[in-house]
């Protein structure tokens, strides 16, 4: 039984969307639990993709195509999952801060966090501080993850983190993106800085005290 999940994971890593789709259909045909296929097949595959990305063996083009393969399977399996069967490790509100429309990094972090068991609320790009703040009541996030590619938008990041630390100190903040670094994260009192998507996954587990399965 685990062989099919392993094949699914391998197909994600090898960017074979059609193969992932076939395997997902086989899972359903054989009456296997879709939530297990998502966790041990698709998510395990993306976990390996994250490792390859961190090791600089895969880069953004490859990660994007792997994620396309993962979603090809996910779209088939998700509707068949019995509600509540997928363990949720926590909720992450994620977005690219005000003034920035570059969202590749954010999308990859979102994908990796989702694949590792978090519920993701994606606010998109060019998200104002008000939009982040107004999402808090509705979504009750455990983590707010902020991304930017441009130095011009770092002010917005500082503003959102300052608001959360003051008004919602129980919510953890995580930042990432080309112009920011650990010093900047410390200076604005963000709880975590992730250099890449893999580090974001590690950080989300650390922040919520959840052991990371490797």
């Amino acid at each position, binding site marked *: 039984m685990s062989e099919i999940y392993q094949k699914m994971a391998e197909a994600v890593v090898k960017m074979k969307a059609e193969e992932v789709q076939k395997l997902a259909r086989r899972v359903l045909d054989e009456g296997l639990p879709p939530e297990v296929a998502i966790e041990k097949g698709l998510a395990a595959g993306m976990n390996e993709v994250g490792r390859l990305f961190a090791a600089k063996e895969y*880069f*953004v083009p490859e990660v994007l195509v792997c994620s*396309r393969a993962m979603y090809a399977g996910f779209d088939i399996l998700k509707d068949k999952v019995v509600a509540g069967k997928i363990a949720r490790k926590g909720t992450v509100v994620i977005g690219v801060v005000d*003034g920035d429309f570059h969202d*590749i990094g954010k999308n990859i972090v979102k994908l990796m966090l989702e694949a590792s068991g978090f519920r993701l609320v994606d606010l998109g790009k060019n998200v104002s501080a008000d939009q982040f703040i107004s999402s808090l009541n509705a979504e009750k996030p455990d983590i707010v993850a902020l991304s930017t590619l441009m*130095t*011009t938008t*770092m*002010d917005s990041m500082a503003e959102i983190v300052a608001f959360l630390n003051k008004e919602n100190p129980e919510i953890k903040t995580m930042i990432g993106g080309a112009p920011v*670094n650990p010093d900047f994260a410390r200076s604005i009192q963000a709880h975590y800085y992730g250099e890449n998507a893999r580090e974001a996954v590690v950080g989300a587990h650390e922040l919520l005290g959840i052991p990371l399965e490797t």
Partner: protein
Amino acid sequence: MRRETFDRLFPALKGELSASGPMIAADHLAFLLNEPPVRALRLDQVCRSGELLAEGLQKAQRLYQSDFIIVFSDVSVEAEALGVKLEYLPGRNPQPVRHLPWEEVRVVDMASRGRLPELFGAARTCRERFGGDFPIFFSMKDPFSLAAMAVGTEPFLEKLVLEPEVALGLLEICRENQLGLIKVILSEGFIPFIGAPIASGGLIGAKNFERFALPYLRPLFDQAEKAGSFRCLHICGEIGMLAKELASLNLDLLSFEDWHAEMWPLMPNTISMGFVPTDLFQYGDTKLMREAVNRCKSVMPAPFVLSTGCDLPAKAKPELVQTMMRL
């Protein structure tokens, strides 16, 4: 060889070991133009006006005593010239609201389209003000980054893996467009400064860079050299993994934000530029700036150009730019 290049690039600095100056885009120029007396100019006005850009560049040069200027508004200028629809919101950098369908990307007369005539106007005004010997760089994108900005970065990057031949076809069109643009930059007597914000090592890796970025950059540099100008490149993000590829371009000037000592022996004729972290200019202080500048001076092979690793943040503190310039 490098010394000669340096002297030709920066004729006023003969005998010196370094030049210095920040890389500035329209957002910081708009910020400077609104310094007292307050004129309430908005960024979306400044980035569309050659007159205001020139005024901002002159003010910045006076304030910072830079050894050169770079005519650069924002990263979307050439994508707009190709036909990408931008949105201009008050006080914001222009942002794409509609990328081009792949089949609509064509070879056009870039220099006459979008905001490029305004940028050329700004460059000419600055030359009148500073004189013909003053180095004026004119920013333009590498074909890879332009292709990504034309059709959307994610679809373009996916295509590198899924349908590389289609991506290569688009890159050929973008190369032709940029060959046309660099021809005008050179004929006007400005120094082309090619920026590669998306063809970055960290984003695409060395293999993709070698196949999809390098072959389209090389003819641009060859054309610049043939016209008696310089091979100048700014590359964002990680560059260490691109050492071999960058060395093969025989650059005169490489501007970067990521230092890898081991790559410089491969490029004995290349002047290094940049490396002062941009966030320091907004969030740092004099002490941190001094440390950063001293680090640059201690590692960068002379002659070098002390500069910002990428463009200054919009609200960079002028006093910190001046600190960098004085050290």
